Protein backbone atom coordinates (compact mmCIF):
# COMPACT_ATOMS: atom_id res chain seq x y z
CA UNK A 1 0.00 0.00 0.00
CA UNK A 2 1.40 3.37 -1.03
CA UNK A 3 2.04 6.05 1.57
CA UNK A 4 1.52 9.78 1.09
CA UNK A 5 4.60 11.22 -0.58
CA UNK A 6 5.18 14.64 -2.09
CA UNK A 7 7.99 13.25 -4.23
CA UNK A 8 5.79 10.51 -5.66
CA UNK A 9 3.12 13.06 -6.54
CA UNK A 10 5.70 15.09 -8.48
CA UNK A 11 7.03 12.05 -10.30
CA UNK A 12 3.46 11.04 -11.15
CA UNK A 13 2.66 14.48 -12.54
CA UNK A 14 5.88 14.45 -14.55
CA UNK A 15 4.75 11.23 -16.21
CA UNK A 16 7.91 9.49 -15.01
CA UNK A 17 6.27 6.56 -13.20
CA UNK A 18 6.17 3.10 -14.69
CA UNK A 19 2.76 1.53 -15.24
CA UNK A 20 2.52 -0.50 -11.97
CA UNK A 21 3.62 2.47 -9.82
CA UNK A 22 1.21 4.68 -11.66
CA UNK A 23 -1.62 2.31 -10.94
CA UNK A 24 -0.69 2.16 -7.25
CA UNK A 25 -0.63 5.97 -7.16
CA UNK A 26 -4.07 6.21 -8.74
CA UNK A 27 -5.46 3.72 -6.22
CA UNK A 28 -3.92 5.74 -3.43
CA UNK A 29 -5.37 8.97 -4.80
CA UNK A 30 -8.82 7.45 -4.93
CA UNK A 31 -8.62 6.81 -1.19
CA UNK A 32 -6.56 9.78 0.07
CA UNK A 33 -8.29 13.14 0.16
CA UNK A 34 -5.23 15.14 1.26
CA UNK A 35 -3.14 13.74 -1.61
CA UNK A 36 -5.89 14.66 -4.06
CA UNK A 37 -5.89 18.16 -2.65
CA UNK A 38 -2.10 18.33 -2.89
CA UNK A 39 -2.23 16.99 -6.44
CA UNK A 40 -4.62 19.81 -7.43
CA UNK A 41 -2.19 22.36 -5.99
CA UNK A 42 0.75 20.86 -7.81
CA UNK A 43 -1.23 20.77 -11.05
CA UNK A 44 -1.75 24.50 -10.72
CA UNK A 45 1.99 24.97 -10.19
CA UNK A 46 2.72 22.80 -13.23
CA UNK A 47 0.32 24.88 -15.31
CA UNK A 48 2.07 28.09 -14.26
CA UNK A 49 5.54 26.67 -14.80
CA UNK A 50 4.57 25.57 -18.29
CA UNK A 51 3.64 29.10 -19.37
CA UNK A 52 6.59 30.64 -21.16
CA UNK A 53 7.10 34.12 -19.79
CA UNK A 54 7.30 36.87 -22.39
CA UNK A 55 10.90 37.98 -22.81
CA UNK A 56 11.57 41.06 -24.91
CA UNK A 57 14.49 40.64 -27.26
CA UNK A 58 17.15 43.33 -26.75
CA UNK A 59 17.41 45.93 -29.49
CA UNK A 60 21.16 45.44 -29.88
CA UNK A 61 20.73 41.80 -30.89
CA UNK A 62 21.26 42.43 -34.65
CA UNK A 63 24.47 44.34 -33.90
CA UNK A 64 25.72 41.54 -31.65
CA UNK A 65 24.76 39.02 -34.33
CA UNK A 66 26.94 40.87 -36.85
CA UNK A 67 29.88 40.93 -34.42
CA UNK A 68 29.59 37.24 -33.64
CA UNK A 69 29.36 36.29 -37.30
CA UNK A 70 32.43 38.25 -38.31
CA UNK A 71 34.39 37.02 -35.32
CA UNK A 72 33.38 33.43 -36.07
CA UNK A 73 34.09 33.58 -39.79
CA UNK A 74 37.47 35.21 -39.31
CA UNK A 75 38.55 32.74 -36.60
CA UNK A 76 37.38 29.82 -38.79
CA UNK A 77 39.39 31.21 -41.69
CA UNK A 78 42.44 31.55 -39.50
CA UNK A 79 41.97 28.00 -38.24
CA UNK A 80 41.75 26.77 -41.82
CA UNK A 81 44.92 28.62 -42.81
CA UNK A 82 43.57 31.63 -44.64
CA UNK A 83 46.17 34.38 -44.91
CA UNK A 84 46.33 37.62 -42.97
CA UNK A 85 45.00 39.82 -45.79
CA UNK A 86 41.93 37.65 -46.35
CA UNK A 87 41.12 38.03 -42.67
CA UNK A 88 41.69 41.77 -42.81
CA UNK A 89 39.43 42.07 -45.82
CA UNK A 90 36.73 40.21 -43.93
CA UNK A 91 37.19 42.33 -40.84
CA UNK A 92 36.81 45.53 -42.88
CA UNK A 93 33.76 44.32 -44.77
CA UNK A 94 31.19 45.96 -42.46
CA UNK A 95 33.00 49.33 -42.77
CA UNK A 96 33.20 49.01 -46.55
CA UNK A 97 29.55 48.14 -46.68
CA UNK A 98 28.75 51.27 -44.66
CA UNK A 99 30.96 53.39 -46.91
CA UNK A 100 29.12 52.12 -49.96
CA UNK A 101 26.10 54.11 -48.83
CA UNK A 102 28.03 57.42 -48.97
CA UNK A 103 26.74 59.64 -51.78
CA UNK A 104 29.01 59.75 -54.80
CA UNK A 105 31.11 56.79 -53.71
CA UNK A 106 30.08 54.91 -56.86
CA UNK A 107 31.77 57.53 -59.01
CA UNK A 108 35.16 56.53 -57.65
CA UNK A 109 35.32 53.44 -59.81
CA UNK A 110 34.58 55.50 -62.95
CA UNK A 111 37.22 58.00 -61.89
CA UNK A 112 39.77 55.27 -61.39
CA UNK A 113 39.00 53.83 -64.82
CA UNK A 114 39.29 57.15 -66.62
CA UNK A 115 42.47 58.20 -64.80
CA UNK A 116 44.00 54.80 -64.30
CA UNK A 117 47.47 55.90 -65.28
CA UNK A 118 47.18 59.03 -63.12
CA UNK A 119 46.51 57.27 -59.86
CA UNK A 120 50.09 56.21 -59.08
CA UNK A 121 51.15 59.80 -59.74
CA UNK A 122 48.30 61.04 -57.57
CA UNK A 123 49.43 58.81 -54.71
CA UNK A 124 53.09 59.71 -55.00
CA UNK A 125 52.12 63.38 -55.26
CA UNK A 126 50.09 63.10 -52.07
CA UNK A 127 52.98 61.43 -50.26
CA UNK A 128 55.39 64.16 -51.40
CA UNK A 129 52.95 66.81 -50.27
CA UNK A 130 52.58 65.13 -46.88
CA UNK A 131 56.36 64.97 -46.49
CA UNK A 132 56.64 68.66 -47.20
CA UNK A 133 54.07 69.39 -44.55
CA UNK A 134 55.88 67.30 -41.95
CA UNK A 135 59.46 68.34 -42.79
CA UNK A 136 60.51 71.94 -43.48
CA UNK A 137 62.40 72.52 -46.74
CA UNK A 138 65.65 73.21 -44.89
CA UNK A 139 65.70 69.68 -43.53
CA UNK A 140 66.49 68.34 -46.99
CA UNK A 141 70.10 68.96 -46.30
CA UNK A 142 70.02 66.77 -43.26
CA UNK A 143 68.71 69.21 -40.72
CA UNK A 144 66.95 66.45 -38.83
CA UNK A 145 69.93 64.25 -38.42
Amino acid sequence: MMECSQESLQIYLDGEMDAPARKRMEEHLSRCRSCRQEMARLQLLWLQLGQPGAVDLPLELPYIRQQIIHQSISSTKQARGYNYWDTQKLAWEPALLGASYLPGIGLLSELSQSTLHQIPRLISGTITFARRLISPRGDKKGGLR
Partner: protein
Amino acid sequence: MAEDDRQLVLRCRDMHEEAYQELMHRYEGYVYRLCYNFAGNREDALDLAQETFIRVFKGLDTYQLNRAFKPWLRRITVNTCISFLEKRTPPALYIDQPSADGTTLGDILASSRDPAQEFEWKETGRIMKEALNRLSHIYRLLIILRHQEDLSYQEIADETNMPLGTVKTYLFRARAALRKEMSGYYAWGE
Protein backbone atom coordinates in the same frame (compact mmCIF):
# COMPACT_ATOMS: atom_id res chain seq x y z
CA MET B 1 11.14 28.44 -49.55
CA ALA B 2 13.11 28.58 -46.34
CA GLU B 3 16.21 26.44 -46.23
CA ASP B 4 16.24 23.70 -43.63
CA ASP B 5 18.76 23.80 -40.82
CA ARG B 6 20.93 21.14 -42.42
CA GLN B 7 21.36 23.12 -45.63
CA LEU B 8 22.13 26.23 -43.65
CA VAL B 9 24.78 24.44 -41.60
CA LEU B 10 26.36 23.13 -44.80
CA ARG B 11 26.54 26.64 -46.22
CA CYS B 12 27.92 27.95 -42.92
CA ARG B 13 30.68 25.37 -43.18
CA ASP B 14 31.52 26.93 -46.55
CA MET B 15 31.55 30.27 -44.75
CA HIS B 16 28.63 31.90 -46.51
CA GLU B 17 27.84 34.89 -44.39
CA GLU B 18 24.14 34.93 -45.33
CA ALA B 19 23.83 31.40 -43.99
CA TYR B 20 25.30 32.47 -40.67
CA GLN B 21 22.87 35.40 -40.64
CA GLU B 22 19.90 33.19 -41.37
CA LEU B 23 20.82 30.50 -38.87
CA MET B 24 21.40 32.99 -36.11
CA HIS B 25 18.33 35.02 -36.95
CA ARG B 26 16.31 31.81 -36.77
CA TYR B 27 17.49 30.80 -33.31
CA GLU B 28 18.73 33.90 -31.48
CA GLY B 29 15.33 34.53 -29.89
CA TYR B 30 15.11 30.96 -28.64
CA VAL B 31 18.65 31.03 -27.23
CA TYR B 32 18.27 34.47 -25.67
CA ARG B 33 14.99 33.53 -23.96
CA LEU B 34 16.49 30.33 -22.61
CA CYS B 35 19.46 32.29 -21.26
CA TYR B 36 17.21 35.00 -19.85
CA ASN B 37 15.05 32.49 -18.00
CA PHE B 38 18.21 30.94 -16.61
CA ALA B 39 20.10 34.11 -15.73
CA GLY B 40 17.13 36.23 -14.71
CA ASN B 41 18.64 39.42 -16.08
CA ARG B 42 19.27 41.00 -19.44
CA GLU B 43 23.02 41.58 -19.25
CA ASP B 44 23.97 38.03 -18.28
CA ALA B 45 21.46 36.68 -20.80
CA LEU B 46 23.10 38.68 -23.61
CA ASP B 47 26.57 37.50 -22.59
CA LEU B 48 25.37 33.91 -22.44
CA ALA B 49 23.60 34.09 -25.79
CA GLN B 50 26.70 35.60 -27.37
CA GLU B 51 28.96 32.94 -25.89
CA THR B 52 26.53 30.23 -27.00
CA PHE B 53 26.59 31.33 -30.64
CA ILE B 54 30.37 31.66 -30.65
CA ARG B 55 30.54 28.05 -29.41
CA VAL B 56 27.92 26.96 -31.93
CA PHE B 57 29.80 28.41 -34.90
CA LYS B 58 33.08 27.08 -33.60
CA GLY B 59 31.60 23.61 -33.29
CA LEU B 60 29.63 23.50 -36.54
CA ASP B 61 32.10 21.04 -38.03
CA THR B 62 31.33 18.59 -35.22
CA TYR B 63 27.54 18.83 -35.65
CA GLN B 64 26.12 15.61 -37.06
CA LEU B 65 23.96 16.48 -40.03
CA ASN B 66 21.63 13.53 -39.60
CA ARG B 67 20.48 14.86 -36.23
CA ALA B 68 18.09 17.67 -35.41
CA PHE B 69 19.81 21.01 -35.00
CA LYS B 70 17.73 22.48 -32.18
CA PRO B 71 18.56 19.87 -29.50
CA TRP B 72 22.25 20.26 -30.40
CA LEU B 73 21.91 24.02 -30.03
CA ARG B 74 20.05 23.62 -26.73
CA ARG B 75 22.78 21.37 -25.37
CA ILE B 76 25.40 24.00 -26.16
CA THR B 77 23.23 26.66 -24.52
CA VAL B 78 22.85 24.53 -21.40
CA ASN B 79 26.61 23.86 -21.28
CA THR B 80 27.28 27.57 -21.61
CA CYS B 81 24.90 28.25 -18.72
CA ILE B 82 26.61 25.60 -16.59
CA SER B 83 30.07 27.03 -17.41
CA PHE B 84 28.73 30.42 -16.36
CA LEU B 85 27.84 28.94 -12.96
CA GLU B 86 31.24 27.33 -12.58
CA LYS B 87 33.02 30.62 -13.31
CA ARG B 88 31.06 32.47 -10.68
CA THR B 89 33.04 32.91 -7.46
CA PRO B 90 31.51 32.77 -4.95
CA PRO B 91 28.49 31.06 -6.47
CA ALA B 92 25.50 33.33 -6.16
CA LEU B 93 22.62 31.24 -4.96
CA TYR B 94 20.10 34.00 -5.02
CA ILE B 95 19.71 37.02 -7.20
CA ASP B 96 17.58 40.06 -6.76
CA GLN B 97 15.71 40.44 -9.94
CA PRO B 98 12.96 42.96 -10.33
CA SER B 99 10.07 41.41 -12.19
CA ALA B 100 9.22 42.84 -15.59
CA ASP B 101 5.59 43.20 -16.47
CA GLY B 102 5.62 40.61 -19.23
CA THR B 103 2.66 39.13 -20.98
CA THR B 104 2.46 35.35 -20.84
CA LEU B 105 0.52 32.71 -22.65
CA GLY B 106 -1.61 32.67 -19.55
CA ASP B 107 -2.41 36.31 -20.21
CA ILE B 108 -3.60 35.45 -23.68
CA LEU B 109 -5.73 32.67 -22.27
CA ALA B 110 -6.94 35.02 -19.61
CA SER B 111 -8.01 37.62 -22.17
CA SER B 112 -11.23 35.74 -22.70
CA ARG B 113 -11.99 35.83 -18.98
CA ASP B 114 -13.35 38.67 -16.95
CA PRO B 115 -10.95 41.50 -15.94
CA ALA B 116 -10.75 40.42 -12.29
CA GLN B 117 -9.66 36.90 -13.28
CA GLU B 118 -7.25 38.31 -15.82
CA PHE B 119 -5.66 40.50 -13.18
CA GLU B 120 -5.42 37.59 -10.77
CA TRP B 121 -3.75 35.39 -13.37
CA LYS B 122 -1.21 38.11 -14.17
CA GLU B 123 -0.54 38.63 -10.49
CA THR B 124 0.01 34.90 -10.02
CA GLY B 125 2.41 34.89 -12.94
CA ARG B 126 4.35 37.79 -11.42
CA ILE B 127 4.62 36.09 -8.04
CA MET B 128 5.69 32.84 -9.66
CA LYS B 129 8.35 34.69 -11.64
CA GLU B 130 9.71 36.29 -8.49
CA ALA B 131 9.73 32.93 -6.75
CA LEU B 132 11.60 31.39 -9.69
CA ASN B 133 14.18 34.15 -9.56
CA ARG B 134 14.85 33.39 -5.92
CA LEU B 135 15.80 29.82 -6.78
CA SER B 136 19.43 28.95 -7.38
CA HIS B 137 20.55 29.05 -11.01
CA ILE B 138 20.90 25.29 -11.26
CA TYR B 139 17.38 24.69 -9.88
CA ARG B 140 16.05 27.24 -12.33
CA LEU B 141 17.85 25.59 -15.21
CA LEU B 142 16.29 22.23 -14.35
CA ILE B 143 12.84 23.81 -14.08
CA ILE B 144 13.26 25.40 -17.52
CA LEU B 145 14.40 22.13 -19.07
CA ARG B 146 11.53 20.18 -17.49
CA HIS B 147 8.64 22.60 -17.84
CA GLN B 148 9.52 24.84 -20.78
CA GLU B 149 11.57 22.44 -22.90
CA ASP B 150 9.50 19.44 -21.83
CA LEU B 151 12.49 17.13 -21.34
CA SER B 152 12.31 13.88 -19.38
CA TYR B 153 14.47 13.31 -16.28
CA GLN B 154 16.87 11.21 -18.34
CA GLU B 155 17.11 13.81 -21.09
CA ILE B 156 17.86 16.50 -18.51
CA ALA B 157 20.56 14.30 -17.00
CA ASP B 158 22.08 13.87 -20.48
CA GLU B 159 21.91 17.58 -21.28
CA THR B 160 23.45 18.69 -18.00
CA ASN B 161 25.82 15.75 -17.38
CA MET B 162 24.25 15.34 -13.97
CA PRO B 163 23.40 11.98 -12.39
CA LEU B 164 19.75 11.00 -12.83
CA GLY B 165 19.22 10.84 -9.06
CA THR B 166 20.54 14.39 -8.65
CA VAL B 167 18.20 15.65 -11.34
CA LYS B 168 15.23 14.08 -9.53
CA THR B 169 16.30 15.43 -6.15
CA TYR B 170 17.01 18.94 -7.42
CA LEU B 171 13.74 19.10 -9.33
CA PHE B 172 11.84 17.92 -6.27
CA ARG B 173 13.53 20.50 -4.04
CA ALA B 174 13.06 23.31 -6.56
CA ARG B 175 9.37 22.65 -6.90
CA ALA B 176 8.90 22.13 -3.19
CA ALA B 177 10.47 25.58 -2.70
CA LEU B 178 8.13 27.07 -5.32
CA ARG B 179 5.14 25.38 -3.75
CA LYS B 180 6.11 26.85 -0.39
CA GLU B 181 6.47 30.32 -1.91
CA MET B 182 3.10 30.09 -3.65
CA SER B 183 1.35 28.67 -0.59
CA GLY B 184 1.40 32.15 1.00
CA TYR B 185 -0.32 33.62 -2.03
CA TYR B 186 -2.93 30.90 -2.33
CA ALA B 187 -3.32 30.48 1.46
CA TRP B 188 -2.47 26.78 1.23
CA GLY B 189 -1.34 24.91 4.30
CA GLU B 190 2.36 24.06 4.52
